């Protein structure tokens, strides 16, 4: 019963958000695709946080602590705070570069900054390759979770379709701003739910000392790195660190949020708040995961999630968990679909009056593609999504170079190397036809370091002065 009440409240919240966003809309293209670029700090932190953290905060992170131990904090807690530093430094530079020419997306920016006309195609290829499967995995994961949690109503594809229809409705009505408001609702819901569940998990062991004492007796490997499954090695942690802190450059749904802040002062405040917000939102995952290791150490992840988040909790809190997860999946999927739609403008003749119509049309196509992927793709989809942030990080040097050296036009060397790096990455990690290490160095780390070296070389020696 509670679940339907909380679900109805969430839908009412979304309807109000769409109405508010529509009321604020003007005829300008920035109004629809960047929400008028007038976000305040509160909305900025929540929309960036909700887009970034998604279902991973309540499901993935606790499971990482449960299975791989305390190194999970270095993997995500430290890296997300470090990412806030990149948000600050890169975000301010990016805004300076975008403001004069009125760019609405990254692909238009790099189109102007490179001599090779096919450069945006490499960028679009990279984001399509990793973001559509990632969106599909979110839909599939939550669809299956809802099918199991609320049995007898809809199959997985039914829940996934409902989520997509709701996303299409509110993003068409209110554009980017409606997504921002829905992110704010989701961010608050996620923070509230994860802290209460984290507190209840800790309470079962009376104190922090008891929890760690019990773990040290039964599963000591969870309390240090590299963890019981040897995951958190130095190379894994450092390559994840680099891939994650580069996400503001490599993932368009995050880049857009830096451009949508009202001014640079708000961006500065947003970056500083984001650093603390990251700690606050990830912190409860420690207790949910480590308590889960003691109670449900041997079970599969879906059973751990169902028990820890729903069946072990009072009915109302379980309902908040389910709707919180639904909202989290939707807020990540909507931002990705909208960013994909916004980046693809470049494929059309740029008529500012048609941007709104194009965006809606493209989002609907990507939504359908994601649904088809979610329903029909088998095992191949999961590795693409899991490797999403590492794969898209290869695009970061191509965005970084023109932001760093904007008074120069850059040659085709870096886009070409980026294309080759994407192909090598796919061959090693998806097709598995080449080794994933080079001289004992992880291939993803080696490729990223090579691309950044090339971008520095190009910035110094290979670029022509632009007469601006």
């Amino acid at each position, binding site marked *: 019963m509670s679940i339907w009440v909380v679900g109805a409240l969430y839908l009412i919240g979304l309807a109000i958000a769409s109405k508010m966003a529509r009321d604020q809309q003007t005829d300008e293209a920035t109004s629809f695709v960047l929400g008028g670029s007038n976000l305040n700090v509160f909305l900025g932190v929540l929309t960036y946080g909700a887009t970034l953290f998604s279902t991973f905060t309540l499901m993935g992170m606790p499971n990482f602590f449960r299975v791989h131990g305390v190194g999970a904090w270095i993997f995500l807690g430290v890296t997300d705070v470090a990412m806030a530093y990149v948000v600050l430094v890169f975000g301010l530079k990016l805004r300076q570069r975008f403001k004069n020419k009125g760019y609405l997306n990254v692909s238009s920016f790099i189109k102007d900054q490179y001599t090779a006309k096919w450069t945006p195609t490499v960028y679009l290829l990279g984001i399509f390759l990793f973001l559509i499967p990632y969106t599909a995995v979110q839909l599939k994961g939550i669809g299956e979770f809802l099918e199991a949690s609320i049995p007898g109503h809809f199959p997985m594809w039914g829940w996934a379709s409902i989520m997509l229809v709701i996303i299409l409705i509110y993003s068409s009505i209110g554009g980017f701003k409606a997504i921002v408001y829905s992110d704010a609702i989701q961010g608050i819901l996620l923070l509230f739910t994860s802290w209460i569940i984290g507190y209840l998990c800790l309470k079962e062991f009376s104190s922090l000392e008891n929890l760690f004492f019990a773990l040290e007796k039964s599963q000591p490997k969870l309390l240090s790195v590299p963890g019981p499954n040897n995951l958190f090695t130095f190379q894994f942690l450092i390559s994840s660190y680099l891939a994650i802190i580069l996400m503001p450059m490599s993932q368009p749904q995050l880049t857009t949020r830096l451009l949508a802040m009202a001014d640079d002062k708000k961006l*500065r405040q947003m970056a500083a708040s984001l650093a603390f917000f990251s*700690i606050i939102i990830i912190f409860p995952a420690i207790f949910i995961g480590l308590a889960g290791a003691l109670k449900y150490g041997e079970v599969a992840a879906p059973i751990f999630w169902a028990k820890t988040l729903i069946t072990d909790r009072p009915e109302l809190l379980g309902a908040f968990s389910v709707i919180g997860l639904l909202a989290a999946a939707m807020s990540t999927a909507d931002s990705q679909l909208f960013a994909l739609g916004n980046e693809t403008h470049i494929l059309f003749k740029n008529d500012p009056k048609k941007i709104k119509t194009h965006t809606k049309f493209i989002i609907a196509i990507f939504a359908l593609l994601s649904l088809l992927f979610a329903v029909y793709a088998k095992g191949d989809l999961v590795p693409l999504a899991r490797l999403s942030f590492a794969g898209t990080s290869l695009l970061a040097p191509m965005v970084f170079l023109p932001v760093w050296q904007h008074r120069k036009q850059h040659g085709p060397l870096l886009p070409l190397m980026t294309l080759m790096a994407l192909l090598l990455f796919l061959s090693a990690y998806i097709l598995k036809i080449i080794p994933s290490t080079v001289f004992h160095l992880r291939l993803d780390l080696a490729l990223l370091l090579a691309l950044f070296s090339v971008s520095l070389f190009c910035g110094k020696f290979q670029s022509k002065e632009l007469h601006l």
Partner: protein
Amino acid sequence: MRKYAYTLSFLSFLILTGITFGPLVIPKNIIHPSILGMPRTLGAGLVMSMLMALLVFISAKYLPTNSGEKDSELK
């Protein structure tokens, strides 16, 4: 002064990053001594995160704007 404060906080950030990925924070298979009542890697990792967040705050305050340009407004 503004630039000096920013440079100092940026260098501190780099040093903290280096320490985080070194043996002080992620020693192999070592749990003790506990920090903040938690296993060493977790406690030290939390301390590093909080110090980094503080440095983001300081840098946000002192990071100079580009060559004296006014803050951009993308409207």
